[in-house]
């Protein structure tokens, strides 16, 4: 009788599983929950959102113009009227920083977007098809990587000539190797996943495998990388402008403003202080947001 009992109860359709009753969060909710846990990352995220809004709305709220020259009030120290003081031409630094926000964010987002558009497909093709195509692409990437740091961007700008658009392109090219390498790595890892084999065994085409099953796996490292790359893109772009190879005066670009301030560092340090501080805040926001994203998206750190 007892035996009978056991057998009856093991009917398969009866595997009415208790685990089902508790709703577990979906991957996105889970991600948001993990992001929310990271206070710093949230601050970074909100800062980016706030700065983006300021870059669009800010200019409409200000009474002054970034190129209003006021020779009488030049070199005035920070005050109630000029929060961050005025520069050597009497232009209001605060106004210029607010107007400059969109250039900084624009170069950051723009170059990383361009870099990703070029780097991600290269990485996927290299990782998915392997063999000669892979070797060829990776050799190209190696060549790009042989120019360290700001040097490649500098070389490109020296060909294209100094302008904000050219800086964006230069920094984008400089970002390609990073994306290609990361994507290649995750593609290689994703290719080995059993569910990718399962879908191949079902007779799926390469395109479907790449777009539906590999790309989503690649997306989170790409997003994390992109966020952190925006930070370094902004630094590089500012550096180029500081060297006079990027945005040209009188554009209120922060790197260019620092270049202006450099000449007066002995007498009016604040001219250089505020644009630099602005860069630090923006870059910091992207860095901590990127860190938080990585923690939230990295399954290794789960639990």
């Amino acid at each position, binding site marked *: 009788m007892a035996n009978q009992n056991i057998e009856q109860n093991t009917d398969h359709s009866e595997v009415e599983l208790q*685990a089902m009753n508790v709703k*577990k969060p979906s*991957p996105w909710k889970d991600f948001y929950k993990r992001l929310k846990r990271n206070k710093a990352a949230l601050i970074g995220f909100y800062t980016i959102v706030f700065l983006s809004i300021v870059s669009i709305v800010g200019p409409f709220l200000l009474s002054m113009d970034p190129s209003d020259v006021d020779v009488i009030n030049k070199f005035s120290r920070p005050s109630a009227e000029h929060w961050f003081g005025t520069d050597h031409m009497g232009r209001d630094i605060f106004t210029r920083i607010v107007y400059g926000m969109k250039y900084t964010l624009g170069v950051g987002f723009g170059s990383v977007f361009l870099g990703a558009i070029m780097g991600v497909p290269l990485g996927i093709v290299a990782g998915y098809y392997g063999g000669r195509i892979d070797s060829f692409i990776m050799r190209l990437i190696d060549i790009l990587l042989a120019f360290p740091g700001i040097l490649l961007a500098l070389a490109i700008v020296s060909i294209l000539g100094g302008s904000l658009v050219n800086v964006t392109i230069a920094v984008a090219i400089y970002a390609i190797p990073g994306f290609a390498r990361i994507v290649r790595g995750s593609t290689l890892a994703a290719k080995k996943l059993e*569910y990718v084999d*399962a879908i191949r*065994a*079902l*007779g799926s085409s390469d395109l479907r495998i790449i777009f539906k099953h590999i790309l989503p796996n690649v997306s989170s490292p790409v997003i994390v990388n992109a966020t952190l790359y925006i930070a370094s893109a902004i630094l590089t772009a500012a550096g180029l402008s500081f060297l006079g190879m990027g945005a040209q005066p009188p554009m209120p670009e922060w790197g260019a403003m620092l270049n202006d301030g450099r000449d007066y560092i002995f007498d009016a340090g604040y001219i250089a202080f505020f644009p630099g501080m602005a860069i630090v805040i923006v870059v910091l926001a992207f860095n901590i947001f990127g860190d938080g994203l990585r923690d939230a998206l990295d399954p290794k750190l789960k639990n």
Partner: protein
Amino acid sequence: MSQKELLKVKNLKQYFPIKGGIFGRTVNNVKAVDDISFTVHEGETVSVVGESGCGKSTTGRAILRLDNPTDGTVEFDGVNLLDLNKKEMRKMRKDMQIIFQDPYASLNPRQTVRETLREAMAIQNVVPKEKRADRIAELLETVGLQPYHADRYPHEFSGGQRQRIGIARALSVDPKLIVCDEAVSALDVSIQAQVLNLLKKFQKEMNLTYLFISHDLGVVRHISDRVIVMYLGKIVEVGDKKSIFENPQHPYTKALLSAIPVPDPDHNKDRIFLQGDVPSPIDPPTGCRFHTRCPFATERCKEETPELRSAGYMAEGHQGACHYMELIESGEHQPTRETSNVRMLDEEPEKV
């Protein structure tokens, strides 16, 4: 066997190149599967057993062309799969499916169960679009889940349930052959039994053929009709489940069977301890690949590669690849090495 031959593997070789040297050329090969032949009949379960590195999983993947084999033929339903181009092969895949070991890695975490199953049907276009929803509900019930599970994500299921979803995906295209690659190895005993029973049930109901790849001899004994024993890329013994388990002929099979711990404290047996580890498949031993560890090895084993063959006293279809099968059976050929000592100090340090 009166049933027709569904799968016929002939001289299958799967080598993986090792790049090295100064120019990164292929300097050597991992001979994962080295010239094996066997047949699987419709409706039967053939198990491939062996220890890690013996080539059993590689065999399964090569048959499905998940990796492209180096050489040989794989005839499925009379068609040599290795002659097919990419497109023809994709069509062919409808008839042959695979279930994997890791229930966590074998489902796309971003797809709900419904999306997973619907995609499978869409790829092979097996069920008319409007009927797919019903088919999904039906499949889920078949594998012991409920229709309302369709809209859940894999992480909402336990390991055993995921394995059921994997089975449902394989069944969704109505295949003839399913390769089960360690399909129950990652599951706990109590769950493993559920899945094994399920697989047996489907075989009866749908006349499925299984190529069951496993290292667990208990599971193999339970599920198989016939068993193939592999060692270092070669088949060392093949035969009926009964003959293999009760009358093993190859010294490796004997050692393997004797090594399994039996859940019965009174079970007493003479254990054969093999010396050392499995050699590297890059430079496999000459002659019989097992000779470096075989208790019965002689000079002949080092030089001559034994072929699979039968002997008069063996059951029909039972074959072993050993020069001395008969003589060992009759007791005329005695062990040339110690088999009861686990401290093998005389062994030469292996090359790594």
